[in-house]
Every structure is written in structure tokens, then in C-alpha cells.
């Protein structure tokens, strides 16, 4: 049990090049489940490996329980890690794999067997203790890797995309199991994933990284409702938030020829930034769909994704004067006017239909057009 602090921690692979992790500040409280998420190359795995002691800390420091970890080797950090490919010892049986950290810690053989039995019972591996890893399925191997981590009751668990080698169904069930296990054991956990669904469902708090820099560190709900910048807004949520660069007008902003009124205080804030344009974000579920010709921004539906419980419409916004008859001109999802809308399932909307869209005013997110910061 311990808290983990990244204090301006940096990793620079080659001198002069862009740091893989750039002055990362992160505080993980005791017992907390924190997810590091980001696109590939964002430095999330590197940050985790720095905490594990598998990568140098080139600047700043990382503290576990107040102890500075710079120069401390992995084996002395008292942390356990679950690797993406599980990294089981192929020549050892499941039981020996799980007992290995205890053996290295000099725990007596009978005590080792006892702890392995306990962990195996929790993970449902009791029948497999004498098998070699190659005789196990992917999900079972994953559990052995978990078992190897939990038997030694470390201060911190690290998990590097532990679900990415499982099939989709297994991933969902294991996701819940890991989260439940972590709550039960109460061990501080840092979990890396590129999958924002995993991040949102598992973490107490989520740290979103891009280009080695921390973008936002908040609870999943905050991340969704109040993204700190346009990058976070675009990354979290599936399908992604619709982002438009729109001109400011007297009463608000103009989107596809339609003026959207903004509350007075918001306009006042915008006024302090001396900008003429703004990045406007609207989540797919924040649109109201009505029939063509009614009040709203006219749009054409290009693709309908029917998911059962709801449906996603991929369409193109039209200027009020614009002409949408030229079907071949637009590629779905590209360009300034592409829009994604969530509607209830079986809405009856078809490809090629004309509709009118109205965003809800509370659902508008405004970002600086250049820096991307939330306004």
C-alpha cells in the first residue's frame, strides 16, 4: 500500500530529441486505481516502465511512499507488473510461476505453497497449478500473470495493456474482474491502456497523455463532461465528439450558416481572448434530430450504424443556401462539415435522408482555436 508521485518526471531517449515523457506530474493516492490512457506514442507505457524501474528517469523524480525511486532497481521497488504478453516463465508450471516472486523474496516453501493456493483459488486457477503456460488459454495465462502479481502483496500493481491479447468478450469480463480484484485487495494500481472504454470503466481517475505530456488527470465523468482541451474532447467518447472551427458572431457562434446563441457569461469570457474563431465541440448525443425543413441545421445522412439500443448517423451539415444534391462530393467523416449524431435505435432514418439537427446549448464545448484549451 502506497501512494505514487511523478514529480516532473521525464524520459529522454536521445539527447536533444523530443522527450518520450515530458515533465509528468501525477499523484496517485493510496489504494487508488489510476489509468494512463493515450494514443500510441503518447508515452503512457514509458511512464509506467519508469515507475517499474525498466526505464531511466532522466529528469525529475518518482516517489513511492515518499521514497525517491531514482537509481533504485526494479527488484528493490516492491512493485508487481502484469505485462501485455503476460511474460510467464515458459519452463515453469503455473504454480512455480506464481511462487517465483516469493521464492526470490526468500519465503519458505510451505508458506509459498499456501499463498499460491490462496491466489489460485481467487483466480480460479486451482486445477491448473501443475500445467505449463503453453497448455493454457489466453485468458488463463492472463490470470496466471495476475496471480504472480498478487501473491507477493506488493505496494503497487502495474499493468501494461493486460487485456489487449484477449478476444473482445473475454476482455469485457476480465475488465470487470480486474477492477473488482483491485477494489478487494485495495492495492494502489497504475494501469496503461490505449482503449478509452477500459480507461473510463476501470479507473478511479484517468490520466490522458499525448506526445509525452499530461493532457488531463480527472475522474472519468469529469473527463467526459469537462474535457480540458480539444484533444481530450476528441479522444474520450465513442464515436468522438464533433469538433468544428466556427466564427464568432454577436450573439454566439455561426455553425454551417446557422447562428447558435451562447449565454451572456460565456460570450463575456470569449470576449477576453481576442479571437474571431472558436473550436466548437458537440457530443453525438447532444443533437436533436427533426425532419428536414423544420428549425435546425439541415444535414444529409451518409451512413447509418444501427447498434440495436441506439444508432449513429454519419452525415454532412449544409449551409442553409448550400446544395446537398451532389452525392459524390462528400466522403464520410472528413471535412469541416462531417457530423456524427446518436439517435435511438430503429429511428427509421436511412442513408441519403435529409434531416435537421439542433444542438443543446448545455452540450456545447468551446476551445481556443489555436491552443485547444477549454474556454
Amino acid at each position: 500500500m502506497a501512494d505514487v508521485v511523478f514529480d516532473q518526471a521525464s524520459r529522454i531517449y536521445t539527447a536533444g530529441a523530443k522527450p518520450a515523457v515530458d515533465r509528468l506530474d501525477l499523484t496517485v493516492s493510496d489504494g487508488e486505481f489510476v489509468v494512463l490512457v493515450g494514443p500510441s506514442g503518447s508515452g503512457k507505457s514509458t511512464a509506467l516502465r519508469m515507475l517499474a524501474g525498466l526505464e531511466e528517469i532522466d529528469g525529475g523524480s518518482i516517489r513511492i511512499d515518499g521514497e525517491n525511486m531514482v537509481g533504485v532497481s526494479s527488484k528493490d521497488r516492491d512493485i508487481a507488473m502484469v505485462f501485455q504478453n503476460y511474460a510467464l516463465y515458459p519452463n515453469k508450471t503455473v504454480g512455480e510461476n506464481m511462487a517465483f516472486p516469493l521464492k526470490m523474496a526468500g519465503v519458505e516453501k510451505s508458506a509459498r505453497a499456501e499463498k499460491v493456493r490462496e491466489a489460485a483459488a481467487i483466480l480460479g486457477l486451482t486445477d491448473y497449478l501443475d500445467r505449463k503456460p503453453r497448455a493454457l488459454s489466453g485468458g488463463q495465462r492472463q490470470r496466471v500473470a495476475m496471480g504472480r502479481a498478487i501473491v507477493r502483496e506488493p505496494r503497487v500493481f502495474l499493468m501494461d495493456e493486460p487485456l489487449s491479447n484477449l478476444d473482445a468478450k473475454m476482455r469485457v469480463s476480465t475488465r470487470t474482474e480486474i477492477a473488482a480484484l483491485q477494489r478487494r485487495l485495495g492495492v494502489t494500481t497504475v494501469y496503461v491502456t490505449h482503449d478509452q472504454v477500459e480507461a473510463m470503466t476501470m479507473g478511479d481517475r484517468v490520466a490522458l497523455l499525448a506526445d509525452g505530456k499530461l493532457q488531463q488527470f480527472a475522474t472519468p465523468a469529469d473527463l467526459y463532461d469537462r474535457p480540458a482541451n480539444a484533444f481530450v474532447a476528441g479522444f474520450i467518447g465513442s464515436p468522438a465528439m464533433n469538433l468544428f472551427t466556427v466564427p464568432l458572431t454577436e450573439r454566439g457562434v455561426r455553425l454551417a450558416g446557422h447562428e447558435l446563441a451562447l449565454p451572456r457569461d460565456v460570450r463575456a469570457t470569449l470576449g477576453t481572448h481576442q479571437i474571431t474563431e472558436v473550436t466548437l465541440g458537440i457530443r453525438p448525443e447532444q443533437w436533436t434530430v427533426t425532419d428536414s425543413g423544420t428549425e435546425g441545421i439541415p444535414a444529409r445522412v451518409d451512413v447509418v450504424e444501427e447498434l440495436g439500443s441506439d444508432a449513429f448517423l454519419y452525415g454532412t451539415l449544409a449551409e442553409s443556401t448550400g446544395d446537398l444534391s451532389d452525392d459524390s462530393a462528400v466522403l464520410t467523416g472528413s471535412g469541416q462539415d462531417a457530423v456524427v449524431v446518436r439517435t435511438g435505435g430503429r429511428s427509421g432514418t436511412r442513408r441519403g435522408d435529409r434531416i435537421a439537427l439542433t444542438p443543446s446549448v448545455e452540450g456545447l464545448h468551446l476551445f481556443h482555436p489555436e491552443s485547444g484549451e477549454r474556454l
Partner: protein
Amino acid sequence: MTVTEATPQAPPERPAERGNARKEGWIRRAPLLPALIFTIIVTQLPFLVTIWYSLQSWNLVRPGSQRFVGLENYATVFTDSQFRGVALNSIILTLGAVFIAMILGLAIALLLNRAFVGRGIVRTLIITPFLITPVAGALLWKTVMFDPTYGLVNFVLGPFGADQTDWISTFPRAAVIVALVWQWTPFMMLLILAGLGSQPAEVLEAARMDGANGFAVFREVTLPHLRRFIELGVVLGAIYLVNTFDTIYMMTQGGPGTASANLPFYIYQRAFLGFDIGESAAMGVVTVVATIIVATLALRLIFRSFSAAEEA
């Protein structure tokens, strides 16, 4: 992960199709036939002829002495104490050279598996002994290294009182083993390096995270991973080294007496210096049969450990 899938059942073949398949099989194999026939002529026929000779009493020094004696030569071979001594020499030379070369190769491979400046050059230099003709290598050890007067070994060990020691006649077997080890260490090193390269980095990292120090990582994780590579090196090295001739011929001529002779060299001595064709043929047959038995067992061991390839 091994998933056993149901292989789709081939439809039952009709006789005409089977005939066609056989014909096609022969068309495909026919181009290999000359090579196969050639191989049989140069390897299997001489062996049959050797078996025939081994059943004769035939010494080239006494013309006209050739006559059929049945298994008498074999009886002589098995009661010949010199033959038993030479057989033991063969085992000592082969196993000694193979195991020492393997241990050194393993150590050097572990060192070379780290990143350092000039690694490529060092690796190339270490491989060179394997590229040198065995005869040249043996000559080098006999003259440049072990010569009692001018040899480098005595020059270096001189201050420690090793002055004027004739290493080759004092320790003939050890001297041959040293030359063989020098030549075969690079081969073992290359095999082990390949093995180290095939080890996933994640497993090593996992072991470090699990609290293992450098030696524990080696003993618990790396060595078990290298086991099949070590087995392969030992078996290939043994199969090759059991036939060593050139090194012994150049360095010791099997001497003093038969102190450093192995089976191939002793057979050569009996056949081409003693001219006893019958007896040396019998020895040859015994050696071949013994080698086939050992090699079969050893190869089976390799194939087993490689077919049970350890994934995960």
C-alpha cells in the same frame, strides 16, 4: 497455444486418382534421383564393402593372405586393450572438448549479449577460429603456442616456472582438447547468442520485477530457455568432433603411443600404417555402429526439445 482443429476429411480416392498421384509423385521426385544414387554409391556401397573386408583376414604386407574368417576380427577388436583405450580416448576428447567449448561459448555469448561499443568487431574476431582450416589451427597450436622453446605458452608462463615444458608430449590429450576447444567455442557461442536473441525481453523484465537478481535471472529464466540450444550445440559438436582426425594427425600423431589417438586415427594407423585391412575394417564397422546408436539417441533428444517449442 495449440488449437486442435478438425482437419477436413479428404474424399476417398478412387484407384485411378491414386495411380495419377503416384505418377505425379515420381515426376516430382525424379530430378532428385541422380543425387540419391550418387549418395548411395559413395556412402552406402563403401560401407557394405567394409563389412565384407571385416570378415576377412587380410594384411597387405603378406600378399595372398586374404581369406574368409567370419567374425574372428570382431573378437580380436573386442579383446584388444589398445582399442578399448582408444575408444575411451575418443570419449574423453569429444566430451571434454564439447563441454569446455560449450561453457566458454556460453560465457562469451552472455558477455556479447550486452550492448557495448565495438561489439560487432569483437564478435567477428571471436568467430575467426571457427573459420580457420582445422589443419592450420592445429599447426598453429603445435608450433606457435605449445613449442617448448619458441612457444607463446612457455613465454607467457616462463616467469611462473613453466620453462621448457613440452606441453604436447607431457599432456597430449589435454593439448588436443585445447586446440579443439579454441576452434569450437565460437560455434557454441553463435548458437547460444541466437538462443539469447530469441528470448523475449519481457520475461527478463518480469523476472527483475519479481525480485530476481542477475544470477537468479540467469539460473531461473535464461538457462532453462537456453537448454535446447545447449543440447543442440552439444549434439552437433559431438557428432563432428568424434570424427576428429586432422588436429590429432598434425599435433600428436596419436602419440605418445596411442595416448592421444581416437578411433578414426587409430583405424587409419591400423589400415594405412599397419596394412591390416581386415581388422581395421572391423574396427570401422564397430565405430560406425556405435556412432549411429549414440547419434540417433542424441538427435531424438534434440528433435523432442525443439518440437515441444516453448511459446507463451
